């Protein structure tokens, strides 16, 4: 199966969160009129790790979105059979019609990325901008990333690109379909 993916370059991500807001805008996740901090759905989040002691410090930033798991625990958790992994693209999708709003997938997702729409009582998440990629466009986050830290493509090809650029795969973080890379030094 072809697996579409995003490669996150830790040498470039600056944790600016531009991708998060652009994604929200594109997918209409925010009611701009009434929005308050802490109450908004988001398909990505920024994580970071600071190591060392003053003045010898290092810090990495990266984004976490749905990892398009190889064997998605969310699919297993969903009794309604609303979640499937698309055979053409490897994208894990939630069928809003079938979703009963039980929230079972949210508990089982190891990455904590599934959002819940309380009003409509349905689960939703990053589907790699399925609406765009099937038309040959990149996912929104990849297009707008402030630092050009994200790259979209087939997982296999992205891996080759990383290799060619002298980047090493961060294996622990890249166990599913999203790839995390950093300069090999």
């Amino acid at each position, binding site marked *: 199966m072809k697996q579409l993916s995003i490669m996150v370059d830790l*040498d*470039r991500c*600056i*944790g*600016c*969160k*531009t991708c*998060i*807001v*652009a994604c*929200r*805008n*594109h997918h*209409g996740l*925010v009611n*701009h*009129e*009434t*929005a*308050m*901090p*802490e109450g*908004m759905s*988001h398909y990505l*989040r920024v994580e970071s790790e*600071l190591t*060392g*002691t*003053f*003045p010898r*410090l*290092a*810090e*990495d*930033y990266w984004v976490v979105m749905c990892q398009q798991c190889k064997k998605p625990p969310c699919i297993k958790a969903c009794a309604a059979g609303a979640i499937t992994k698309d055979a053409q693209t490897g994208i894990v999708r939630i069928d809003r019609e079938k979703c009963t709003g039980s929230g079972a997938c949210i508990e089982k997702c190891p990455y904590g990325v599934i959002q819940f729409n309380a009003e409509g009582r349905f689960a939703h998440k990053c589907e790699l901008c399925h609406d765009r990629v099937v038309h040959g466009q990149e996912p929104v986050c990849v*297009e*707008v990333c*402030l*630092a*050009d830290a994200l790259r979209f493509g087939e997982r296999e090809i992205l891996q080759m690109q990383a290799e060619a650029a002298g980047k090493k795969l961060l294996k622990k973080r890249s166990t599913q379909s999203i790839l995390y890379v950093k300069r090999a030094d």
Partner: protein
Amino acid sequence: MSESKWIPTVCYQCKAECAILARVEDGVVREVKGNPRARGKMCVKGMAGITTLYSQERLKHPLKRVGERGEGKFVRIGWDEAMNIMETKLRELRKRGEGHKFTYSMFPHSTTDPKWRFVNAMGGFITTGLPHCDSAKIMAHLHTFGCFPNHHIAPMYYTVPKGGVMILSGRHPFGCLDDACVPRDILDAKERGAKLVVIDPIFRTEAAKADWWIPIRPGGDAALFLGMCNHLLTKGLHDKAFCDKWVREGDMAGLMAFIKNKTPAAMSKICDVPARDIVKLAEMCAAAPSVSVDAFKSIMYGNAMDWGHAWSIFLVITGNLDNPGGQPMPEIAPMAPVAPVPPPPNLKELGYHRTGPNRARFDHYTFFLQPTWYAAQAVREGTLKVFFASECNPALSEMGSGEWREAMTLKDRSGNYALELFVLTEIMPSETMKWADLVLPDQTNFERWELLYMPWWYNFGHTAAVCQPVVKPVGESRHANRVMIDLGKRMFPEFFAFKDDVEYYDIELSGIGMSMRKMLDGGAIWSPGTVGFRKYEDAGRFNTPSGKIELEWKMYGDIGQQWPSPELPLEFRRDADKYPFILVNFRTIFLNNTGAWSQNNAQLRDPVSGIDANPVLLNPVDAARLGIADGDMVTVASSTGSVRLPASLTERIKPGCAGIIHGFGQTMGKVASRGAWAGDNELIADAGSHLDEQDLRGGEAHVSTRVKITK
């Protein structure tokens, strides 16, 4: 199918004003992104601009104060009444011969902003963020090599060659103050083999990406660069050919004499960077094909002028002027004047609103804006009677917030406010609003026309950009520019004979053979062509009185400032045992500082997509000494103010420093007033009344103020 298209316009979530596209569907803005015709990027603040546009907290009608200033009580009024209030007071002021006691605090979006025209017609003053931020840098570069950069003239990172050195000295370009393309361009340069050196007391995103992080003592930059100059000059590592050809006769000898005792060892004592590192950085720069210095925030030291001077000297002796990867020197493209042009006030005759102890010595400054702004003193001494403010939030952005508040409520013997009228245009509720007599609902960049013209933008691929309304305005909001044009038409019809803002911009654009229509057809941006390099070679001169680079500032000889001092002004050095910490206030990409529109933006104050906390950062070593644990409430006190904040212990910050973000502290607006955070200007002294040396040597004391921390 619903109608959906991408419309080119301009972002105004911050003052970088990036060229963008807005996707409008059925009359509603859905999405925004960088304009691919410009440099194609837009940051998180810009992306969140849609939330500013549609927030239910938008101010929708003119408001008039009821009750006392500071209470924040208003009644809704109509635009006619608002216009009449302004007109009546301003006419009265002019009749009294006190037109110059009117000041408008704004950020002119171009050198041709119509608000500024109104100020000139009125005979009043303009004050901008510049006195706080970068007058010092502008003056330093203007004096030394005759070009007019400001913080928007960042190095052109896309021209930095392999091996080029990019120095960020107290500068956070990943926060996008220049243009949203800058983070990408810096990272691309790094991938090409350029080196990134970050000089900063706090380890931040830029430092995390740097090849070398130098945690300096705040305010030490002038010393560090003078130490480097000493090493380069005494070891003959400077660009001799360039200096021989372009530096004014006698200046190199003067510099040698001045720099003699600024040895790396001596300078190390001031900046707390080891002498061997000063030497190493100097040699790295001497060997590099190019060096750029980007230093915006660091010009907010108490010695901003000295620092700007030291940095200018460094650029000169390393030959890094107008070269690829060095300091760009933009040319000014001529916009057409809109005749008849109202003459600006005569500063030589009227003086600035400068009332501090060094008033007379201020005549040395030749810049057209005030070197520093003294609102509180001006009110107290009766030289500020009518105050207008747009797109700034003086209640939080003025040094010495306490004194500012006092001045706003100061009354004369008969019980009238000393400041007779205070008018504020605002998109969202702001702290300043509480003190205003009139609050006028302003428009976001999605609702207004504006010609943005910044000659230095050509670094980013264009010099002019058009902001156009892409949706209908919210409520009764009116853009401040239109309001001032209307007021101008009532009061000074001879200077406001054009139809409206669009026609005004059209006339200006004719100077470059453009019009608003042509601009829009061309994607809403215009560029004069390529930037060019080393233009002084073609011209055969620099744009200084002598035509050469003027290292020695002879006009400041009698105030002893012809050469830069490596030290901070006295007021930041004394009382070090009483106030052992140095306050470092810093910026983040998530907020346009004190701007009420970004502080009130739910997405920017959301912890997932923005920032929602502003504790005081302390190094664990200091905290342990003081018995402070992570999260403890502490008092941060300076000699003029104090705030209570939770402490956050982090290795990121240099011991001896206390870090807080600039811009928090609002009590107005549901979003902005979340959490008991404080404004840094509560701690920073009001320049006119508390500082003696600093106000002559530049900038704001943001990164110099001494504080003590107690539990």
